[in-house]
């Protein structure tokens, strides 16, 4: 019991210490121990701040970035004005996202008014599917697979990494550590919602596909929703305007299906899942 209390107090001290800034801690140690604590090497401080930059923005900042991007995207294509549809997509999306390692993000899903076939993810858990893509879906498992792919981009921070690679972040990381106005945030993400029009690395897309089928499976759905949608999209002529941006920013559906085939193999053979065709919310044509 006694040792337990000792341990607890040690933890308590460490907890308090962690909450003090480095300077205060040094000062208080100095006062307590009456010894001269050596100055922190300035090069070391520099290294620490570089490390912070590499680590990137924290979760609050990530959400603020994603919110700004999403608000811009909605400026280009507003939500479909169908509350039942929006609620339904959030129900499916929230359930799929809860199977990921970031269940506590404030996840948001929406269907946007566009005939294009596409879906977008922004940092912090904002995900949008175009009406053109939604209309291709046959059941809830298809939707779960598509949303799972986008959740994959968010949890692996694919877009955030792009922002970090660009010149924007060097300025950004410091700006973001303080309270920021929308203007500074906007500078960070570039012009409008261009970040979502910029293609990710092919491997990031393949990774998101693998995550999409796994999250749908974990959520109890048929794993083959996403591959089925990719089959449908692969059917589109490449010259079709509605898939122009999608094909420009993603590997072609056939490549994605080949990669999924190799990755999935026979692993899903004994796994059955639901498609929930009857519950699937259908939009009016």
């Amino acid at each position, binding site marked *: 019991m006694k040792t337990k209390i000792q341990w607890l107090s040690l933890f308590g001290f460490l907890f308090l210490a962690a909450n003090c800034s480095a300077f205060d801690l040094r000062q208080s140690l100095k006062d307590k121990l009456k010894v001269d604590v050596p100055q922190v090497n300035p090069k070391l401080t520099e290294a620490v701040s570089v490390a912070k930059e590499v680590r990137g923005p924290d979760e609050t900042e990530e959400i603020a970035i994603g919110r700004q991007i999403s608000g811009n995207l909605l400026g280009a294509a507003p939500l479909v004005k169908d509350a039942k549809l929006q609620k339904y997509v959030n129900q499916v999306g929230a359930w799929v996202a809860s199977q990921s390692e970031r269940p506590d993000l*404030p996840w948001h899903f929406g269907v946007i008014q566009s005939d294009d076939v596409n879906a977008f993810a922004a940092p912090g858990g904002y995900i949008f599917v*175009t009406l053109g893509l939604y209309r291709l879906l046959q059941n809830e498992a298809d939707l779960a697979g598509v949303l799972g792919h986008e959740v994959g981009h968010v949890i692996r921070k694919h877009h955030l990494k792009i922002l970090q690679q660009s010149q924007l972040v060097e300025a950004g990381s410091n700006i973001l550590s303080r309270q920021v106005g929308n203007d500074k945030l*906007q500078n960070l993400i570039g012009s409008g919602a261009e970040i979502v029009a910029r293609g990710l690395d092919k491997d990031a897309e393949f990774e998101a596909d693998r995550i999409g089928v796994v999250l749908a499976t974990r*959520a109890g759905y048929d794993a*083959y929703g996403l591959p089925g949608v990719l089959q449908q999209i692969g059917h589109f002529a490449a*010259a079709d305007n509605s898939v122009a941006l999608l094909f420009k920013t993603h590997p072609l559906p056939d490549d994605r299906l080949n990669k999924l085939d190799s990755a999935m193999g026979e692993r899903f053979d004994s796994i059955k899942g639901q498609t929930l065709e009857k519950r699937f919310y259908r939009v009016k044509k």
Partner: protein
Amino acid sequence: MKKFLIWAIACCVLCGAPLAWAAESGTLTKNDELKAQPYRDAKTLKALAAGEKISILGKDGGWYKIKAGKSRGWVRMLSVRKGNAKKAASATGLLALASGRNATGKVVATTGIRGLNEEELKAASFNADEIQLAESYAVNQADARKFAAKGKLLARPFDYLPQPQ
């Protein structure tokens, strides 16, 4: 009501496939087997060769119900690509599309009027009302669990897939 049911059943029997499915064409992308049922250990009906044209009649999980020549059976969905595999013909068009240029080097428009093109996305400005509306539809984890339970969706562990070599 009874009449309707009889009609519905008759339709299903006549079509021999789920109602939503109209036959679509497809092509085998690799050698595989036509199975009597949609699972791995089912009886093999015949061998299918890469490049073979088939009709897709239905879907069950990772399997397509197909017609290959005169035989009907099941094949792995990922061994098939929908369409007639005439995509090679449009490969140049596709490359041009990817670079935003056609074969002559002229910049071509990549999206239609109602689509979302890069210029529109770049020019877009923040819509506060829409983002607030989007956020108003948020579903918390407890409600998501209820929604899942209603659909008899059971969460289960499944490891992420390694990147294929």
